[in-house]
């Protein structure tokens, strides 16, 4: 069996993780395998804990093409440059298909809240739209010509606020976000990463 990479994962840890995440044993081990494989390329030990740079986490195949990968990592690593296994497992657990909608909605809100002010304002939505059409903001050619014009973006944002912004303050709060997410059954199938 594929237990060999789990040398550092004790049975007790496994039981604890199973109770605290939405994963079963195999999935935890699979996550651990993915995490340990990154270690081969770079290690940075802080005491006993294994820490992996966020840059490397962002390059695992499951995240590599995602235009929000840096946001995902920073939300789950508390804005640090390193991630430990528990944070990684937490991220994968929230994005697994077993996690409930509310939890996913919360993290989605945080991912899209680019300036971390607990509000989705116009600025956040602008950046969201740019990322949706061009990917991470490191592709200058696309950002020069490929992205939507400001006018188009403004129009879309206006439409979104017209529907979702219930108190008309030109921002979306978490509850407003949830309100609409509840009506979009696709959310639960699209906010998923299979390890």
């Amino acid at each position: 069996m594929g237990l060999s990479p789990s040398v550092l994962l004790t049975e007790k840890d496994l039981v604890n993780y199973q109770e605290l995440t939405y994963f079963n044993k195999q999935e935890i081990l699979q996550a651990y395998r993915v995490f340990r494989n990154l270690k081969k390329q770079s290690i940075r030990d802080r005491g006993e804990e294994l820490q992996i740079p966020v840059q490397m986490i962002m390059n695992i195949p499951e995240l590599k093409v995602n235009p929000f990968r840096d946001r995902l990592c920073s939300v789950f690593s508390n804005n640090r440059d390193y991630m430990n296994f528990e944070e990684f497992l937490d991220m994968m657990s929230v994005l697994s298909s077993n996690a409930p909608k509310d939890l996913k909605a919360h993290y989605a809100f945080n991912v899209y809240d680019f300036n971390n002010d607990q509000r989705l304002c116009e600025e956040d939505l602008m950046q969201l739209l740019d990322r949706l059409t061009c990917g991470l903001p490191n592709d200058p050619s696309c950002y020069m010509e490929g992205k939507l014009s400001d006018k188009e973006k403004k129009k879309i944002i206006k439409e979104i606020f017209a529907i979702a912004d219930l108190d008309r303050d030109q921002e979306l709060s978490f509850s407003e976000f949830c309100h609409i997410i509840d009506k979009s059954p696709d959310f639960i199938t699209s906010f998923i990463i299979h390890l």
Partner: protein
Amino acid sequence: MFSNNKISPLPNNGVVDDSSGSQVSQRRQAVVTVEQNSQIWTPHLSERLRRRTEFGELKPTKKSSGNLEQKIIQIRRFLREVAFKLEPWRESVKAIEGHHGSGVASYFLFLRWSIYLNFGFFMLLFGLIVIPQVAFKKKNYTTAVLGINSSYVHVNYSQHCSQQYILNYSSTSVSEILLDFLQGTGWMEKTPLFYGYYEGKELNYDKSYIIPLAYILVCIFSLIYSVIMMAKKSASNFQDSIYDATPSSHYQFFTLVFLSWDYTMTDEISAKLKLKSLKKQIISELTDKQYRQKRKNLTTYQYARIIFIRVLVNIFVLLCLGTGAYLIYFTTQFTTFHVKPDEFHGHHESVRFLVEYLPSITISALNGFIPFVFSFITKVEDYLPQNQVIIILIRTILLRLASLIFLVASLYKEVMCTPKDNCNVGVADCPPLRCWETYIGQQFYKLVIMDFLISFSLCVIVEPLRKLFSRCLKISSLEPQFDVPKNVLDLVYTQSLSWLGFFFAPLLPCMVLLKFFGTFYLKKLSALKWCAALEKPYKASKSQSLFATVLMISFFFCCLPIGYIICYVPPSRSCGPFRVYNNMYDILTITVELWPLTASMIVRFLSSSAFILTIIVILILFLYHCAQRGSAQNETIKLLRKQLNAERKEKFYFMMEANNTATIVAENKASRKQ
């Protein structure tokens, strides 16, 4: 219990942006703290773990709940692990999801579910009908017939007629054997595949096993099994899909922006395509919006023109359906009536083969060709894009169902053709069908084979060629795309064949099972190798509920003819388990009559019209109650929405007030100091 620990482990909220000291940001900060307090903030996994080990916090109450609950949790976890390990094709579905997103993957999940469904279906029929008949045929076979003294039973006729049902075939050449295999005739006709093989007597080993009774009960139970499976499937879907009565088009921009990125994507090329297509979609959605606003102020003339065109197109669609109906009717009649077996002398075998396959070819051709026409003419009609897709889909579903209905109707006409001799075989102008059930089974057998051949050739020949041409000639429109609705309709069509045909060919579900099995790998090949990513992604949830609905509808369409045949159509005298009975249903009546008096009384009461009427009335009342509750809940939702809005305004107002007072107080203080 411990699920409570899992839900809402919200992260530490990010750093609050308070670079500017303006009023707005102050207010914002205040609102943030208010919201913070109102929600339960649970820390990260590592923190939770630490608390658990150090303080014993968040631990499931092990001591109080005792050993038993622990065991249950362990067993449940173990079962989940087993299910996880046994889940077939997880990797395949994941790969497809990474390539095309969850919409296409939902098709594969549906396909996998259909395989489960057909597997159960096949096991029921195989285990309870085929195996007893095949394995115990020579062992202690009695001639006893259930209810031999009853008025429904005609043993003499059927004995006389069974002797006339002889197949004369000479299996000399390989080609002939192969052709017979493809048509289900000749040596194939008296195999367990078809109805005609089964005997109408009891098998006796210790206890008697009554084949006709088993046959009818298993068939009815299979249908019930299908309903249960479908209900289970659609229940989970409907919970998600029919959540709100307001049309989803209101949320299109929201959906587009927040939900259109599929986190399951892992393929780099597809991801790039996806980014591009998202941009296209956003722009088209914007132009759409403008178009819609323009549509609102149409002149009467323009409006009348659109209506006129739509009426014309609908008439055309009906004409198409009518032509299809006539073609199916004509070809079925042609194969049975006009081409008598003796006319084939002198013709090549392949001609006979083609004629035999004519109805199946016609149906498949219609199903393949007419949807193209539909999608073309619907463009003329000037519908909104998202409605257009639905309208094409509805028309295609209609066509598919209609073609099956036409087939069943023309077969029915042949079977019920009147001048018949006392063996229930047509004479004079009627087709001499010694065993009409087997004949119908053969038709469905041919349809399934045809269906498989077509999907096989599409995947293996047509799609690679299209891909090649599109690469060479640089025409991107030639490149095949994975059309989810069309594929689902194909699947539903095959499933309907299985439901319609299983009564006449008990091993048909096995064929369908094999077909689905092959289809999974073919479609996987097609999705991963030949097809480009979809330009307009198909929404997973929408499709799931739609699939379930379409399947349900076609199921009930399939049940009707089967039920009718079981209850009213006299079975053939010369073959099959029901050859001695007036109607197939009689076997149930006879069994009930042989029961003790009270039991048969109860059954008779349960099947009486008075009881059924009562049940129907109760069901209608229940339905009404549900509808009422639903509408009441909708009202509550509206009310709550208003309340939420009002509350927010109030909060906003108070915040402003607090800010104002704070500044006034500060000013006062400042002025006092001065």
